[in-house]
Structures are given as structure tokens and as C-alpha cells.
């Protein structure tokens, strides 16, 4: 299934004159780059007929920083810092994607302690990311209280990160060959307390927003994403799983310590905005299950198998590594000439970039407000689209 996407020039042509005094005339508006929905700087050119969206064209590029080009001048360790700045809501998973690819390329073997710590941290971050997405969705739907509730939980998870990692947003924690710092002594007890706190809170989210008839009306049957279309457009993560395709790298190609944990992949049936919503709510619960199972089995051992000062030697060739972030599959392709301290070419396959373009297939025919609902259910993080 192919989707015809018009170019910006085509879209910005002045609309045809109305045929008679009674017929309506289409017009276009710029949604963004400064707009509450853009969640950063993303521009949509929307062609409207009254309240109905006829065409939605994303125009990315407002926060492009050339991260991939910068990687060519950095060492493998330094690349980790930039991966934080892409999808900052799953910064640890960005770190991990770089580390995983570099470790695979350089042939670094890790111990169980490192794998389990990485998995726990990544899953906590997934909960944090989904909590924030839930909060922002509430805001986009007009429920401002949800926004504050989500931020409350985000802070609490952030404090756990801060204690071990020292940072709250751009973590720079997972390094090639280990993790930057060992976990703090009280870490396990604190995370257990956090889990027992978060479980009822997620139920509370259900009572505040999920069960609300207005939210259901706004999300159900809105923007149905066909699984075939989703696959052909390269959607991954909750967006794809909501359409009924159970593609989750944690299950399909287990990495880290995911093989040790027992969890379900949340899958939707219809692919509408509601499925995308509820898949994420379920994922929060599953992530807590994973963390709970892994917490007691953290073995002793060093948190780094390789000293940070050691230069990583990657042989000549092209390497690819991928993992599941909160938003889908993040892949990294590295090309090494076998001589330098860093890659000669790096390319990220970011989940948000592919998920973004679905909007131009889903939104036409729906109202302005539905465009917002669909966008919000796609959970886009703009700096990762632009990189």
C-alpha cells in the first residue's frame, strides 16, 4: 500500500476560487512550528474545508542539528552523548542503541549485572516516557489535570534516576562496555517502593482519563491505521502494535536481560487512536512487571567490563544494531574504516520519523480536533525526527 504524499509546493498553491456564492472554499493553515500541538518545533501544513482536514503535510527540519554528521567526527564513546539529545524521553535507550551497536562491532562481552541494570533502567524510562505521553495526551484533549498528574509521577521516577545517574533528562549512562556508575545501595528497595506506588497510580489514570466517555468518544474509531499500511510505512513500537502486529524487539530478538523476564506484548485490535492509547497504558504495567522480576536477581560483578579510558577498536565494515525504545525500533548503522576512533558514517533509523508520516494518511477526512488526537496518539518526539 502506497501513500501519495504531495510536495509542499503543490500544497501551498492558492486554492481554487469558490464556484458559486454557496459553495465553500478550501484554505490552508500552518499548524506549527509554534503551536501547542507541535510539542517542540514541528510544522504541519493543513488544508482545511471548514473544520474538516483535507490534507496534512508534515514539514520537519526546524530542530535539525546534524547529529549524524557530528558523529563522523566523534569517537564511539562521544556518540553516546548525542544519542541523549535525540529522543530525550527515552535517552537511556538511545544510549543503549549506540552501546549495543558498538559492542557488537567491537566484540565486547558484557556480564549479567550490566545487562540487568541496563534493562531495569530502560524499563523505568519506558514507564516515565509513557507517563509523560499520557499527561500530554490529556493536555491535548483539554484535560489539564492529567498533565499535572503525569508530571508528578515523572518527577518521582526522575528522582530514582538522579540518585544513581546524577542526571534527569540527558543521562549519558549506558556506555559501550558497561554503565557509567554502579547502582546506589538503596536502589532495589527504592524501586520496589516505586513499583508499589505506581501500580495504583496507573489504575488512577484509568479512572481519570481512560474511563471518561468524552475521551473514548474522541479516540475510538478515530484515525484507524491498517496493519498493512503501518508495515509499509515502517511504523514500529506502540503505533504498529496497536494495529495488531506484535512486533516487539524485546520479545522477537531479546537483548539485555529481557529473555529472563516474563512479560506480555500489549497488542491492539483495530489500530484506532484508542488502541494506540491503551497499548501504552498496558505497556506501563508490563514494564513494571519486567522491573519487578529482574530486581531481585541482580548478580554481583563490575559495572564496567572496559575502562572508560580504553580506546574502542572497531574493525573495518558496516554494523547495525537496533532495539525497542518507548516509541519503536531505534536502529544505528555504523561504517568503520578500522583505523579511526569513531565511525566514518553513522545513520540512525528513528521510530518517530516513520511514525510521523502516518499522519498524512490518517488525518484526511477527520476534523481539526481529530488531527490533534491522532498526532497525540502517535507520541512524537520532534528532536528525534530532525536529529
Amino acid at each position, binding site marked *: 500500500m502506497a501513500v501519495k504524499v504531495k510536495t509542499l509546493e503543490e500544497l501551498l498553491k492558492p486554492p481554487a476560487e469558490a464556484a458559486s456564492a454557496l459553495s465553500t472554499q478550501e*484554505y490552508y*493553515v500552518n499548524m506549527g512550528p509554534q*503551536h*501547542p*500541538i507541535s510539542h517542540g518545533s514541528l510544522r504541519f501544513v493543513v488544508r482545511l474545508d471548514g*473544520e474538516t482536514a483535507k490534507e496534512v503535510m508534515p514539514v520537519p527540519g526546524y530542530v535539525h542539528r546534524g547529529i549524524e554528521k557530528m558523529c563522523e567526527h566523534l569517537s564511539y564513546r562521544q556518540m553516546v552523548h548525542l544519542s541523549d539529545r535525540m529522543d530525550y524521553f527515552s535517552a537511556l535507550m538511545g544510549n543503549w542503541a549506540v552501546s549495543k551497536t558498538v559492542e557488537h562491532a567491537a566484540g565486547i562481552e558484557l556480564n549479567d549485572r550490566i545487562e540487568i541494570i541496563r534493562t531495569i533502567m530502560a524499563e523505568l524510562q519506558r514507564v516515565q516516557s509513557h507517563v509523560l505521553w499520557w499527561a500530554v495526551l*490529556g*493536555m*491535548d*484533549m*483539554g*484535560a*489539564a*489535570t*492529567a498533565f*499535572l*498528574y503525569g508530571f*508528578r509521577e515523572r518527577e518521582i521516577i526522575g528522582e530514582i534516576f538522579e540518585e544513581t545517574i546524577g542526571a534527569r533528562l540527558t543521562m549519558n549512562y549506558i556506555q559501550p562496555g558497561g554503565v557509567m556508575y554502579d547502582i546506589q545501595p538503596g536502589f532495589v528497595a527504592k524501586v520496589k517502593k516505586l513499583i508499589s506506588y505506581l501500580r495504583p497510580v496507573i489504575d488512577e489514570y484509568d479512572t*481519570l*482519563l481512560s474511563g*471518561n466517555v*468524552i*475521551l473514548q*468518544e*474522541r479516540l475510538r474509531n478515530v484515525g484507524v491505521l491498517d496493519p498493512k499500511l503501518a508495515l509499509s510505512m515502517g511504523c514500529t513500537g506502540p503505533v504498529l502494535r496497536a494495529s495488531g502486529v506484535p512486533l516487539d524487539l524485546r520479545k522477537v530478538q531479546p537483548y539485555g536481560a529481557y529473555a529472563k523476564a516474563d512479560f506480555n506484548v500489549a497488542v491492539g485490535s483495530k489500530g484506532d487512536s484508542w488502541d494506540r492509547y491503551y497499548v501504552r497504558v498496558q505497556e506501563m504495567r508490563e514494564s513494571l512487571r519486567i522491573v519487578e522480576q529482574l530486581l531481585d536477581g541482580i548478580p554481583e560483578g563490575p559495572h564496567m567490563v572496559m575502562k572508560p579510558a580504553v580506546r574502542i577498536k572497531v574493525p573495518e565494515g558496516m554494523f547495525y544494531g537496533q532495539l525497542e525504545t518507548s516509541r519503536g525500533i531505534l536502529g544505528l548503522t555504523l561504517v568503520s574504516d578500522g583505523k579511526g576512533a569513531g565511525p566514518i558514517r553513522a545513520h540512525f533509523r528513528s521510530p518517530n520519523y516513520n511514525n510521523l508520516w502516518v499522519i498524512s494518511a490518517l488525518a484526511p477526512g477527520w*476534523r*481539526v*480536533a*481529530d488531527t*490533534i488526537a491522532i498526532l497525540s496518539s502517535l507520541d512524537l518526539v520532534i528532536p528525534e525526527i530532525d536529529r
Partner: protein
Amino acid sequence: MHESVVTTWMMTAGAWQAKTWAELASDALSQNIWLTVAYIAGGLIGSMTAVTILGLALIYAERKIAGHFQCRLGPMRVGPHGIFQTLADVVKLLMKEDIIPDRADKAMHLLAPFLAMGATMLVIAVIPYSPLLQLVDLNIGVLYVTAISGFGVMGILLGGWSSNNKWSLLGAMRSGAQIISYEVSATLALMVVVLFAGTLSLRGIVESQMDGWWIWRAHGVGIVAFIIYLIASTAEINRTPFDIPEGESELTGGFHTEYSGMRFSFFFLAEFLNMFVVGAMAATLFLGGWMPFHLGGWEGFNNVMGLIPPIVWFYGKVFFIIFVIMWFRWTFPRLRVDQLMRLEWKVLLPIGFVNLLAASVLVLTNLYFFPGN
């Protein structure tokens, strides 16, 4: 029995002067014209002051209530518990630059906020605050209130139209469609009470509730009408879940996107005062206005209730309804524009008509609690 209740209450609360401010002014006309002028000036200044204080109090209340709903404290810095925060904001808004967008319809753009505000002010004049305090009592009070509050949408439409901004225009059009639709249901709900009370005068309606408030005295239809009125009027004043004309996340601010400074705050103040008007109308028509809560036969209880001054009863009821409306806002998401229309035309309107029909049957058969005279 009812007479005795009323007389005790009159004695405890003090005999009231059953004259409105306008009547006092016209009486004074025969004696001294300057006294009339003084009455008019006093009324104007008094209501202006009252409106300002009310606006400040409501904005403060909204922020505090929102804060506590959202697990935070709300304003805390300016004055004890932040009570002067709104004043500080007013000063800020006064100092802000008044921006008129390029190619906006200048005259309309300047006029719009005053239209929105003016409509609200006109309604506030007829509300009976207490037996002693009412500016004007019109014999067509209910009709006047519905007509004038519909006039407020002119300000919103003009503001959105003249801003030369597509988002503003969308917001204004939504607002126009929404208010025209929901006005019908709100009026149908008010008609139920008018049928029972047999008068359109707001003072007359309050006095007709001496034996019991219409919300429960009118066998079932009262409560249905009250709920319809609450929903429809929440939509009329653009509050969540019906705040689609502002639709912050969709329209960046809706009809007031291009407004800044004091002109923006006029729209804002009008919204809050409209909330007061809705609360006052609901209290007057359904909850007995300034009438205290009385139970037939419970002399002691009624006497205790009568000790509370009527103005406290009135404001208590009004603020309760305002609190409910704020509660809506900080709980519900926003409806979509077509769902909003469906709710009105397919749900509220049929129920409203059936309810009005049932009410007229009840009135004809004299079938309600305490039919009295």
C-alpha cells in the same frame, strides 16, 4: 403555617425594603432630581466595583481550585496565600502593549471585548442578590437575561472575525454555532420554572419559592431542567468540556489568539462573570435565590435557617454552582465540534421539549409539592 414561617423570618432578618434600586431612583424623581442622579451614579459605581471585585475573586478561586485539583498549591507568593496575585496580574495586563494585528479590522478589533463585557454587565443589573439589593426588576427578567447573554457572542464573533487570523476565525465560528445551539436548550429549561412560577420577573420567581425550591418542588421535571440548564449554560459560557472556541491545543487560543493586554483580559473577565451569571440564574430559578432553606412544619429549623442573611444564601448557592463548573473544567477533556452539536440537537433538545411538556401538564393539574394558593 407558611405565613408564620415567613413572618418569623422577616422579624429575625429585619424587615426589608421591598424596593429595587431603580424604583428608589424613580421615587426620588418627584422630590429631587439630583437624588435620582445620585441613585443612578451610585448604582453604576456600585455595580462596577462589585463586578471588579467579583472578577478578581473568581479568578483567584479558579486558580486555587485548579491548584488543589492538580496536587499543587496555586498562587502562594503575592500576599497571604496569594490573594493579591490577580491584582498583580491586572497591573501586568494594564502595562502590556495593546497589539492590533496587521490588516486587522481595527474598529471591530477594538470594539469586540467591550461587547462581550457589556453583555455580561447588563445581565448583572437584573439579578436579585437579596431582598434589599437588586438594581432593576424587569417584568420580563428571564427573557431579558436570555436575550442579552446571547448578545455576548457578538463580541466573540467580531473578535475572531476582525483578528485576520484563521485560528481566530475558526474559534469564532465554533463559538457562534455552539452558543446559538445551546441557547435553545437553556431557554427550554428556564421555561419550566417560568411555567411553575407563573412570572418572568426574577424577583417574582424567587418569591414564588418561599415554600420550596423549584428544583425539588416540581416533581422530577425541576431536577431534569436544572441539569439541562447546567450543561447547556456551561456550553454557552465556553467552559470545559465545551471550550472548543478557545480549544487551546487545537486553535492556539481560539477567538482571542490575537488579543493582548487589557483587551484580552476583558474577554477573560467576561468569561468569569458569565460563570457568575450562570450560577446566579441557576440559583435564582432552581435553588430559591436568596430564600433560605425551609422545611414545612420544622419551625425551629426554619428559624435557625432564617438567621442566615439572604445575601449569604444567595452567594452560597451561586458559588456552589460555580465550583461545580470549575470542577468540570479540571476533570473533563474537551468534546469535538460535531459531538458537541450531536449532544445538543439529538440529546438535550428532545429531553428539553419532553420535559417542558411534562412540566406544563403538571402545572395544569396543579400537581406539585405544596401547591399552596
